[in-house]
């Protein structure tokens, strides 16, 4: 979407603050040299001196502290209105979740079967997909059919078991499809067997209505998966929330539906 002609301003500032990771510093300096822009670092140093002369640290620090104290007084009163009912709601929601999920099995739809099958965690051979919701005290496991809300951050994990290639993606109530693993369509879908993995970044639910349905598609064949084909299969589901995924015979899938 954007044509990057020069290094972004943030990178120059981080270089000047010596907060750029070492492994990137060399290449960025090299790029600045190639752009004939090494003087940008010198300009930042000059600008720093000028700003600190115009707005002395002691004076500004005092002003900032005063603002902070003033804002604290204003914020405290309005926070009390939210904190008490919110904490009560959270406690009630946590208790309800525990009661609803004791002994619950994870319903799973497997390609090729007529009826949805229930899979027990620990079934040998089939990879496992796990979704957890991050909370202020840790994580809560999300089973298929459980509720989550816009703004909730979900952690995606998997155990590859016997799968040699896999893809994880999701579709929401708007029909928007998001690829989670691999991170880019061009990356390999190969995985080592019997490997547990936690995807590096949490996934924040947006305001799409109804649901977010997560798919894990895998194969035990050595041939890597075609990410584009799998994403297209998800995009063209007749009913994104309930239809079976139409895939080649050598592919299998599981899904977890997070209700919103």
């Amino acid at each position, binding site marked *: *979407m*954007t*044509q*990057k*002609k*020069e290094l*972004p*301003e*943030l990178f120059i*500032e*981080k270089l*000047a*603050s010596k*907060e750029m990771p070492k492994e990137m510093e060399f290449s960025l300096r090299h790029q600045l040299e190639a752009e004939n822009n090494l003087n940008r670092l010198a300009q*930042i140093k000059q*600008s*720093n001196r000028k*700003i*600190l002369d115009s*707005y002395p*640290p*002691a004076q*500004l*620090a005092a*002003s*900032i*502290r005063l*603002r*902070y104290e003033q*804002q604290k007084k204003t914020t405290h009163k309005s*926070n009390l209105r*939210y*904190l008490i009912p*919110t904490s009560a709601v*959270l406690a009630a929601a946590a208790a309800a979740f525990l009661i609803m999920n004791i002994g619950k099995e994870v319903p799973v739809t497997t390609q090729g079967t007529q009826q949805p099958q229930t899979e027990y965690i620990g079934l040998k051979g089939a990879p496992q997909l796990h979704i957890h919701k*991050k*909370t*202020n005290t840790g994580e809560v496991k999300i089973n298929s059919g459980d509720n989550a*809300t*816009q*703004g909730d*951050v979900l952690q995606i994990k998997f155990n590859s078991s016997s799968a040699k290639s896999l893809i994880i993606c999701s579709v929401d109530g708007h029909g*928007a499809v*998001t*690829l*989670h693993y691999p*991170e*880019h369509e061009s990356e390999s879908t190969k995985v080592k067997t019997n490997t547990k993995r936690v*995807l*590096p*970044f*949490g*996934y*924040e639910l*947006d*305001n799409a209505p109804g649901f977010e349905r997560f798919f894990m598609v895998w194969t035990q064949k050595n041939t890597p998966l075609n990410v584009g084909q799998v994403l297209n299969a998800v995009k063209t589901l007749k009913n994104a929330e309930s239809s079976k995924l139409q895939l080649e015979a050598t592919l299998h899938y599981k899904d977890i539906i997070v209700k919103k």
Partner: protein
Amino acid sequence: MAIDVEAYYTQYGPMVLRRCRRLLQNEDSAVDAMQDTFVQLLRYSERLEHEAPSSLLYRMATNVCLNKLRSSSRKPEDIGTDLLHQIACADLPENRFIAANLIGKLFSKHQESTRTIAVLHLLDGMTLNEVAKEVGMSVSGVRKRLRPLKGQLLELQRSE
């Protein structure tokens, strides 16, 4: 986490002011926004445990400036064709059920605003990968966050 405000200002204040000047194009507003940025740092100092101060303050400054632009542009005609103003004033489904600041406190996780992400990518020219690394999200997550905004920007451009 206690912060030595004077030390942080000495080290990063000029960077923050440069950022605010660039976005607000007005010295008084920029100095005001710069101070507000450090107030945000005092309020959310625990975030310093997880990331470099320069990155954090740069994004906080961006967010503060966007909020200022948004609150000052009351009428549609104030928005103009400037991309930054369009981003600041775009109608976005940000989390509304509790104020974003309060969520950050309750769950110890800051959710970077879509507008700040948009500025980093669309205005500052950072790639999706670079933005994702900066804000601690997946590339697909960043892409999804930008989707509704890009639709609005295109719409605005088409109507001119």
